[in-house]
Structure formats: structure tokens, C-alpha cells
């Protein structure tokens, strides 16, 4: 049987090869392998996962990797945890109890390096090296940290990286993450983690009995991640950060012609490489107010009220209403922010003066349903879709939840993020297009090749009759020219905007107000739109900040215009 022989012989040959190989490994090379095995002396050292660089729109570096030294330990090599922990606690800023806790945790592989402290200072490195002989199993290892060139300025846009959590390990199983890996945890670092993340480099080393490197067995080079080119303009970003000062609030600037975000600042911020110390600070430093803060829009909402009333024909341009400082509806008294009243006003005066009585009356006539319909048309109550994680939807109430008086002046259970209001004013600025705001316009590979180009997206187009749009835009100009937003005037450039101040009436402890200013400029050829939000302030302060930012951005050569004594008032809408 020839076939039978062939099958048997092939098997014999294969088995012979296995026996020979096994003989070679187990008999001839036995001493070598037994030695390697006895000492358990092969260790793996990772040199960190490089991440891509983040540039502003003009290719100025905003965030990059920087080398850094970390303190690590190999659980298997730590000889006397108690003693070593107390040495460490003495020489560097580490707590003995927490070090002991880390030593005693059971790790998946006792030969993997575990981080004790990241970002060692020069001094700490020197001290650890001095005591190295008494610290078996504890090493200094090269690694990478993220360096934000503008410091805290970009913390909310870029976000931060952090050790992968158990939860994330489970849900991203297929992406090849390992415990201890650093991945983007917020902001662009998180949203674009797949692109930014490179491949870890590392080496396998042979170590001696104390775990110190004896010989390098093999090495893998790291592969850098892809770079991001943002729509952010570093200059505008810095101006916004500067002008916001140390107020709590946020500033977002956008190009109303395409939805590109030019600047996004939220304060207070945090240091991306020292998250721990910001965890308990006041003022919610980790909250990106621009996209995660939800606030009543206040008088900014009058833009919607005006459009709803005009478009539905409830009022005509020159219909006048007398403001006596208050109106009575049923058993309630509704106040205008100006106690003595504005007298007889039509919409061309009521809007710049932000007259509550006028808009309240108009709101009553127009009805909640119509106003909500227009708010919905402008995408209030829906996240804008910006490329950042965690954006909030805001809240558009059901028609039964809110009365027309409150809604017409943006009070009550209606909430919007500053970014949503920016999107709204930008839509007015460009004549009706709702652009999707975005931060990353290009993804490039480390060698400069283009990986992805992100084009502007129009989410939808809102149709408003040209006449009514004209009335609104004139009103917005007048807000700055002689109305409540006078502080935003800029010499040489006409600004159009709207103020909003909201009293947080129902909180007993904080009776303050928060303020908004949304605007665009130049008024007849809008190139930039802006929202300024302050946590505990009123709108004139917001418009002042907006004015300074616009002045520095649009006419940097001129001095700010001296603002004459204006009739300044806070348009507090009081809900009794």
C-alpha cells in the first residue's frame, strides 16, 4: 500500500523533527534555559505610548509629548515592602500607607511594572538614585507626559489622558488596550483617542537578582500617533483666556460662516498633569461650561421670541406697547428690569432696551407653542454635535411646563449651553444656516500625510423672511449702539449682539445672577461670533469682555473706545 506508507512516513518525519527540536532545547541548550528560568530574569519595560501632536489652525503647537521620569516597581522584585515603603515615604513626597497598599495589591503579572509616582522632579530622581541599593524592585523609568504649551488655557478643549479604567478595558476590548495604559479621558484627547494614540515602544531585558538590567534582549521602536490640526486660533484663544481673567465662566468664538470654533475657554481650569490637586477645588474646574454647563438663556431668548412673534404675524414692526415697569397677569405682578418703565415702545426700541414688559406681552399673544417651535427650529434642546465628549442637550420644556411670560424672556425651566446660544447667534449672523460646530479640521500622519480632512457641515437651514431678519439684525446692532450691550462697542467695527442676565432666584444660598452676551462682528459682514458667559455676574460685564476680545481680534492696532456713561441697568427678571 503506497498511500498508507506515505501517510505514515510523513507523520514519522514530522515527529522526528519535533524530537530533534525538543532534544536540542531540552538537552543541548538545557543549562542556558534552566538558568534563564531559575532567575525569572526576563522583564518587560515599556517606554510609554506616544501620542500625536495637536496644532492650532496655523500649525502652532498646542499640545505635544514631553519626556518625563516615573517611579515604578516590579511586584515580584520588591523584597521587603514595609522597609522600602518607609524609605520612599522619607525621601520623596509619597504616603507610606498608600505605597504599602499598592505593593500589596495583586497584579495580573507580578513582573509587570506598576507606577508609583509619575513626573519625578530632578531632586526626587537624585534622592532615589542615592538610595537605589536599598530599594530592590523599585526603578526610575522613562516615560511620556502631555505638555500643554498654553498651560491651563487649553485644558477644556484638549482634555487630559489618564490610566484606563476597568470599565473602559471591558468596553474597548478589541482595541488592544492593556491595564495601566494611558488613554484620552476627556476633551479631544478622548474624542480622537483612536487617532492620537500611537504604539508603545519597549524592550525586553534580562535582569539580575535585584531586578536591575543586565542585558537588553530585544527592543521595539514606538510608533507615534496621528496629529490633529484644530480650528482654534491660538491668538484668539489666548486673548479670550486673558480677557476672561479669573472670572468663572466661558468664552467661545466661532466662525459663523462654517462652524469652525476659533476659541473655547472655560474657567476655572486645571493642570492636566496634576489632576489630583484640582479634584477638590472650588468652582468645578473640570466642568467645561461651554458644552456641559446648562443655564437659562434669559433675555438672549428674546431673539427667538421676536422671530416667533414677527414671523407668525402676532405683531407688526411698529406696534407699540406701554411699559409702566410692570404688568399684572391674573394674580401675578410681572416686573420690567427698569422700575419706572420704558414708556411706549415698539420692537425697535424694546429689543435694544430688553424691555421685559414688551416681550412678556408679546409672548402672551404669541403663545408658548409658537415660541417653543422657533426654539426647536434653532436646535435649542439638542446637543450641537461638536467633536467633544459629554456635550449636554440643554432642555426645552414641554408646553405645559412653562408659562408664556417666563418663556418669552428666557426664564424658567428652559436651559441651554453657551455653545447652543453661540450656534443660535451664528445662525442669525449668516442668515439662517445652522453649522455644526467643530474643533478638528484635519488629521495628519506623523510624516505629514493627510489622513482625514473634516469639512464644515450644515445641519439645517432655518427660513426667516428677509424683512423680519432685517428687523432683528437692526435690533442686535442697536443693543450695542444704544441699548443694554453698550460695553461691547468697538471702534471701527460694528458689533451686533444681545445681553442676558438671569437671577438664580430659587437658590437660597446663591442669590446672584449669571450673565450672557452673544454677538457677531462686523455686523454687516459677520466673520466672528462670540458668546461670553459669566457664572456670577450680570450682562454688562459680559459685553465688556466681548468688546475687548473683539477689539483685540479685529482691530488690534486701535485703542479701545472710551465708553461714555451709559444708562446701565441690570435687567433682572424677577419672578415673584
Amino acid at each position, binding site marked *: 500500500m503506497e498511500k*498508507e506508507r*506515505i*501517510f505514515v512516513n510523513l507523520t514519522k518525519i514530522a*515527529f522526528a523533527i519535533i524530537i530533534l527540536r*525538543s532534544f536540542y532545547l*531540552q*538537552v543541548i541548550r538545557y543549562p542556558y*534555559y534552566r538558568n534563564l528560568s531559575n532567575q525569572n530574569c*526576563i522583564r518587560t519595560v515599556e517606554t510609554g505610548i506616544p501620542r500625536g501632536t495637536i496644532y492650532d489652525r496655523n500649525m502652532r503647537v498646542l499640545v505635544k509629548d514631553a519626556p518625563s521620569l516615573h517611579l515604578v516597581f516590579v511586584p515580584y522584585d520588591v523584597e521587603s515592602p514595609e522597609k522600602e515603603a518607609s524609605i520612599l515615604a522619607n525621601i520623596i513626597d509619597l504616603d507610606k500607607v498608600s505605597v504599602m497598599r499598592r505593593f500589596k495589591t495583586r497584579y495580573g503579572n507580578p513582573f509587570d511594572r506598576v507606577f508609583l509616582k509619575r513626573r519625578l522632579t530632578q531632586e526626587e530622581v537624585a534622592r532615589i538614585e542615592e538610595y537605589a541599593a536599598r530599594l530592590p524592585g523599585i526603578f526610575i523609568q522613562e516615560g511620556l507626559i502631555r505638555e500643554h504649551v498654553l498651560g491651563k488655557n487649553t485644558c477644556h478643549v484638549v482634555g487630559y489622558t489618564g490610566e484606563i479604567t476597568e470599565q473602559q478595558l471591558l468596553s474597548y476590548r478589541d482595541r488592544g488596550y492593556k491595564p495601566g495604559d494611558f488613554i484620552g479621558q476627556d476633551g479631544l484627547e478622548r474624542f480622537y483617542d483612536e487617532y492620537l494614540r500611537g504604539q508603545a515602544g519597549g524592550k525586553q531585558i534580562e535582569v539580575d537578582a535585584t531586578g536591575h538590567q543586565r542585558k537588553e534582549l530585544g527592543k*521595539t521602536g514606538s510608533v507615534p500617533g496621528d496629529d490633529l490640526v484644530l480650528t482654534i486660533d491660538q491668538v484668539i484663544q489666548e486673548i479670550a483666556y486673558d480677557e476672561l481673567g479669573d472670572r468663572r465662566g466661558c468664552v467661545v468664538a466661532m466662525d459663523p460662516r462654517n462652524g469652525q470654533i476659533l476659541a473655547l475657554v472655560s474657567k476655572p481650569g486645571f493642570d492636566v498633569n496634576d489632576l489630583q490637586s484640582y479634584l477638590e477645588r472650588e468652582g468645578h474646574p473640570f466642568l467645561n461650561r461651554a458644552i456641559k454647563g446648562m443655564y437659562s438663556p434669559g433675555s438672549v431668548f428674546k431673539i427667538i421670541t421676536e422671530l416667533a412673534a414677527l414671523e407668525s404675524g402676532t405683531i407688526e414692526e411698529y406696534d407699540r406697547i406701554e411699559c409702566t415697569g410692570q404688568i399684572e397677569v391674573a394674580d401675578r405682578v410681572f416686573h420690567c428690569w427698569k422700575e419706572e418703565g420704558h414708556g411706549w415702545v415698539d420692537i425697535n426700541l424694546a429689543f435694544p432696551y430688553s424691555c421685559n414688559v414688551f416681550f412678556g406681552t408679546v409672548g402672551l399673544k404669541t403663545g408658548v407653542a409658537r415660541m417653543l417651535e422657533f426654539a426647536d427650529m434653532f436646535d435649542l434642546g439638542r446637543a450641537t454635535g461638536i467633536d467633544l465628549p459629554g456635550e449636554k442637550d440643554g432642555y426645552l420644556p414641554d408646553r405645559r411646563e412653562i408659562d408664556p411670560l417666563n418663556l418669552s424672556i428666557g426664564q424658567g425651566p428652559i436651559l441651554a449651553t453657551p455653545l447652543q446660544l453661540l450656534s443660535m447667534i451664528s445662525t442669525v449672523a449668516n442668515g439662517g444656516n445652522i453649522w455644526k460646530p467643530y474643533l478638528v479640521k484635519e488629521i495628519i500622519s506623523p510624516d505629514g500625510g493627510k489622513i482625514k480632512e473634516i469639512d464644515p457641515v450644515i445641519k439645517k437651514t432655518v427660513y426667516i423672511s428677509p424683512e423680519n431678519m432685517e428687523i432683528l439684525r437692526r435690533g442686535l446692532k442697536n443693543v450695542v449702539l444704544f441699548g443694554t450691550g453698550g460695553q461691547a462697542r468697538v471702534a471701527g467695527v460694528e458689533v451686533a449682539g444681545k445681553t442676558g442676565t438671569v437671577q438664580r432666584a430659587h437658590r437660597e444660598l446663591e442669590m446672584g445672577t449669571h450673565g450672557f452676551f452673544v454677538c457677531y462682528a462686523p455686523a454687516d459682514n459677520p466673520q466672528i461670533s462670540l458668546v461670553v458667559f459669566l457664572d456670577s455676574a450680570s450682562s454688562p460685564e459680559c459685553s465688556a469682555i466681548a468688546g475687548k476680545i473683539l477689539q483685540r481680534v479685529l482691530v488690534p492696532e486701535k485703542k479701545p473706545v472710551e465708553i461714555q456713561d451709559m444708562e446701565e441697568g441690570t435687567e433682572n427678571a424677577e419672578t415673584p
Partner: protein
Amino acid sequence: MLKHLKKLFEERKLFGWTYLLISIGLLLLFTASKGIFMREALFLKQCLWLILGTVIAAFVKKADYRDFQKLAPLFYIIILFCLVMVLFVGRGSGASRWIRLGWFNFQPSEFAKLITIITLAAYLSEKDIRRPHILLFSLFIIGIPFLFILKQPDLGTAFIFILVFFAILYQAGGSKGQILTLFVIGVLSSPVLWFMMKPYQRERILTFLNPMRDPLGKGYNLIQSIITIGSGGFWGRGFLRGTQTKLAFLPEYHTDFIFCVLAEELGFFGVMLLLFIYYMFFRIIVGIIYSTRDRFARLMGTGILTALVSQAVINMCMTMGLFPVVGIPLPFISYGGSSLIVSLICVVLLVNIEENSLMF
């Protein structure tokens, strides 16, 4: 009792060797489960699999293997359906190979191997392979599950499919010209395959060629695997006394790298012993194949033999750095329910063939 067992052993030699292999596997799983990762659950689970497998085998034993010839097309369609399912709902790290069914994972590619062999044998038992359209249709039968498995991707099993196909082709009387042509086409199309591969698969092949290429990832396994085998020496460190596997230097030592546990604890001697048992086992199968005159039985037997031998050989070779790490279990020994059950069914089918051939 003992006498009874002895009688059984003599009459059903194949069962004897099979259960000897399985016992060795359980012992190795037991020692492997004593490491710093306690894996006793795996040992117990494998015992459960063995019981379940034996019950299934007993059922198959009652059936006539020739029934499978008639049922082949039905099984074939069912398994194709399962393979498609795996692509959509499959799970597994990096590749989708398993379907979750209640408390266990079901690996259709293991069953696909056996069913494809049966289908191909059934088809060729009445056809002349030398006619081109018959050859083409045979390629078709094996090609569909092959492509699905390649897509999962499960390179190892796909490779076994190729070997099985050539073996059956040869056994069925394919001409040298046919075999040579297919071989050349296969070699020429391998660059295409390279581009179809997922990056991690290319990485594995490159790692095989040079383990130091990726010392942190796949290369780490291979380096540790070789150290583990080498450190066993001639007599080994002794049962339950291995250190490499106990200290978890080697991941996956209960599945694809279980051979290392044997090599470390029982040394070169243990390896020789295992090879001897495998050899005896395979010799008996060859004997069965050539004792029958039924063409279907012979073709099926050849397919099963090829699948088992190549799995054993490839698994051992990959742990010793002679073959890329492709994730093929060591038959009867590695942890894994689907693999064990399918292997047991294979043995039962062979025993059925043996019994029937005696009747002639």
C-alpha cells in the same frame, strides 16, 4: 472489573489510547491550574466537557457512520449558517471565533472541520476526482467554510483545511498533475492572502520569523514558551513543580501552550512519551483506514487522520518556534470543549468504521 477494562482496551484499542491522551491532558491542566492564577475552574470545566463529550460519543456510536453520508449536506448547511453567525455575533480577543450559548462558548470552526471532511468524503465517494468539474466542486465544498474561517480570522484552522483537502484529494486518487497544479496555484496566491490578512496576523508571521521583533507582545509568548520547554531538561522539574507556568510567565498555557507544561514538568522524557502515545494512536487510525473497503469511510478516515496529526504537529512546532503561533489546540489535551467533543466524535466514527469493516 480490571479484566473487563483490559478486554475493552484490546477490543477497542483506539478508545484506550484516546482516553490515555485525555488523562494526560487532565493531569497537565490540573498542574497548570495550580499557578498564581488559580485556574481550578478550568480543570473542573474540562472534566465536565469530557463527560458531555463521552455521552455525545456514545450516541454517535449507536448510529451507523453511513448515515452521516446521507446527512452530510444538511450538516454542511447548518454549519455554514453557524459560521456566518460567528461573523456577526462572535466573540474572542481580536478575532471572533466563538458564539456564546448560555454558560459556554461554542466554537463552530471546530465542528466545521469535521463536517466539511464528511461532506467532501460523501461527495467524492461516488465521483471520479480526475474529472475537472468534480475537482472544482470539491474545491467549492471546502472553499466556502475555508473563507469564512479565514475571515474570522482563524488562520490555523484554515491552514488545516488546506492540508485536509490535499490529503483527501490524494486518497481519492487525484493525479499528480492535479495536486501539483493546485499546490502551485496556492503558493502563487499566498501574496494575495498576505494583503487580505489583518495587521495582527502579519505581525504574528513576522514575529515567527524574528521573535525579537515584538518582545513585548507576541514575541514574549514565544520566548517564554521556548525558555519553558528548554528549562525542563531531560527528566523535567517533576509533576506539579514547574515554575514558568506557575508564575504565569506564559499566558494561555492551558490552551495553546499546554505542551510547555508537559515539557517543563516531565522534560524530554515526557515529550517522547507523548509522541509515542500519539504515534500509536495514529498508527491504529491508519490501520482502520486501510482495513475498510468502503470508499466513503476511507476518505473520511483520511480527512480525520490528517486533521488530528496536523493539529498535533503544528501545535507542538509552534510552541518550539518551528511554526508561527496560530492558535491551534493540541488534540485531546488542550483546554477547550468544542475541540474535545469534536475529537471524541472523530474517534467514535473511526471505531464505527472499524467495526463495520470487520463484517465484510
